[in-house]
């Protein structure tokens, strides 16, 4: 029993780490010769990937998976809320400037 | 027989302190005819140049003994503890008040001493230090007001056969609180009773503090003596 659980944790960790490494790939595709360029696609996908990671941490590491429904919904709502705030401030800020 | 607990020693520091405070008060050249807020920067600077020595020595005396009131307030807080209250809240409140006036007074005291440290500086700066000192000194009333009101409330709530303090002490404290209140608004005027050398902000306020210390000192002395006599009977 415990081994299956720990394998699950290992897989979760591997997924999180590979998502982190995906950033390196993103970074390499967008930058040319070390000069950074603004990119809405990169910004939005960086935020979205980070929030997916946050949700995985909530569900798996923090064991919300086994928690009562209200906590599942609350944490999901929170991820959505954070996403709305971050993307909202990014787009509103871009529109203003 | 009761152990020597120092309560009386602390109490008897009060008259000694009072003598020192009164002498320092008269030694400071700016108090007996309180300096006016209408003095120009040059006049203020001249005052600090001419009276440097008396300002320094009187304020050093105040610096040494300014905090001497704290043990007395704590003695009052301990008497509140003996009252017929259900919680120690009023006692705590008095402890919370105890440090306030000496702290503010020490700030004012430092500004006066700073003013006299280099009286040859630009007159504008000396005037600034003088303003800071006088305003801080005049508005140090908030904790004194709170302390009088809380003490009055504590006495009023002390309903037992032999209350710790008699009811008139409560009324006396209300009167003192009322006398101290106008000083809070001293910055509103250069002249008149509210100004920092005026009737209300200077004379009424400082006389009220002095009377409060004398009257509460006597009341406290009697109460402590009665308490000790009572304790001896019980023992």
């Amino acid at each position, binding site marked *: 029993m415990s081994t299956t659980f720990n394998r699950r944790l290992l897989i979760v960790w591997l997924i999180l780490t590979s998502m982190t490494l995906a950033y390196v790939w993103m970074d390499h595709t967008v930058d040319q010769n070390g000069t950074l360029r603004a990119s809405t696609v990169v910004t939005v996908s960086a935020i979205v990937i980070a929030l997916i990671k946050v949700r995985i941490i909530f569900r798996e590491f923090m064991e919300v998976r086994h928690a009562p429904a209200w906590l599942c919904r609350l944490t999901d709502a929170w991820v959505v809320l954070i996403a709305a705030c971050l993307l909202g401030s990014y787009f509103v800020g871009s529109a203003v400037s | 027989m009761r152990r020597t607990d120092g309560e009386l020693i602390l109490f008897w520091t009060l008259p000694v302190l009072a003598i020192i405070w009164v002498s320092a008060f008269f030694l400071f050249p700016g108090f007996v005819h309180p300096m006016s807020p209408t003095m120009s920067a040059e006049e203020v600077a001249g005052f600090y140049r001419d009276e440097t020595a008396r300002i320094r020595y009187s304020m050093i005396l105040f610096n040494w003994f300014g905090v001497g009131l704290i043990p007395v307030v704590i003695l009052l807080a301990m008497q509140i503890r003996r009252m017929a209250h259900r919680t120690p*809240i009023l006692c705590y409140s008095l402890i919370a008040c105890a440090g306030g006036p000496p702290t503010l007074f020490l700030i004012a005291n430092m500004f006066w001493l700073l003013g006299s440290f280099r009286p040859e500086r630009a007159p504008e700066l000396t005037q600034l230090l003088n303003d800071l000192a006088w305003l801080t000194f005049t508005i140090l009333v*908030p904790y004194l007001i709170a302390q009088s009101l809380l003490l009055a*409330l504590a006495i009023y709530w002390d309903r037992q056969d032999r209350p710790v303090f008699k009811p008139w002490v409560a009324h006396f404290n209300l009167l003192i609180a009322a006398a101290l209140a106008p000083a809070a608004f001293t910055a509103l005027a250069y002249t008149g009773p509210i100004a920092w050398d005026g009737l209300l902000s200077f004379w009424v306020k400082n006389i009220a503090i002095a009377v409060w210390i004398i009257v509460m000192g006597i009341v406290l002395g009697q109460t402590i003596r009665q308490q000790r006599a009572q304790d001896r009977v019980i023992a």
Partner: protein
Amino acid sequence: MSLPKMKTTEPLTMSDPPTGSWVSRLVWNFRHHPKRELWFAWWVMVIFYQLYGVLFFFVTRVQPPPSPAWDTPTVVRWFDDHDFGILAGFGVVFLVAGMCAPMNALLAYSMRRMSVSRLFAYSYLIIYSLAAVPGMLVMAIAMIVAALRPHRDPELIHWLYDFAFLSFSGTMGVFMIGSLVWMVAILLDKNRVFPKWFGYLSLCNALTEVVVAPAWIFHRGAFAWNGAIAWWINMVVFVLYTGVFIVLLRKMIQREDFRAGPLPALPDKGEAAHSDSVEAVR
């Protein structure tokens, strides 16, 4: 840690308050309510924060704070415009600043009611009694000195302006340590005086006090003393935190039974309504 046996002449269970006009009920509550000291301190706290908000935000107009990036003439003009508000408003502040004392006493009492050492109550009491001086009074003094003589050297007025706002915003250590003392007491407490989440909220509050420190460094931007992070977010957290502990203290007083063990839960609906009405009158 047991509560001290306070001498009481009145029994804990009192006869009902008279059912007359609200004035007579108020008088009865003031004189005889078994929890009169607690309710007194609580009401002082509520009124103090109301006054604080009105005085700082509307009368003196020092909150939300003006910009640290202003040049000297702008600062002098600001003082000219707010002259009377500052002098009168801070006069009232000096008059009522002593209300902090019963408020801090109530907070200390909440720690006294917990199953923790007295150390916490006394530390908190002293820390927060000290806090009023750098947190409010020094600022008020600098402000009235600047407003007293609008014609003094503008450089000096500018210095007083900086002194006022930096002493007000920049000395947050007392509040940080105070919140942490309260937090530790709540987390260790076994008498259920406060819910544990409030302890964690105290940690959040303490951490926002850290965030104000850059106000000493920056003249503009999010971290200046009027910045989005150093002021606005902190203010929201502070207001929320204050609101929460006012409500929780009210609950604590309703539950108080003057014994040493765990605080009982709130009484049932009927009884709660009764005690509410008693307190509403106070």
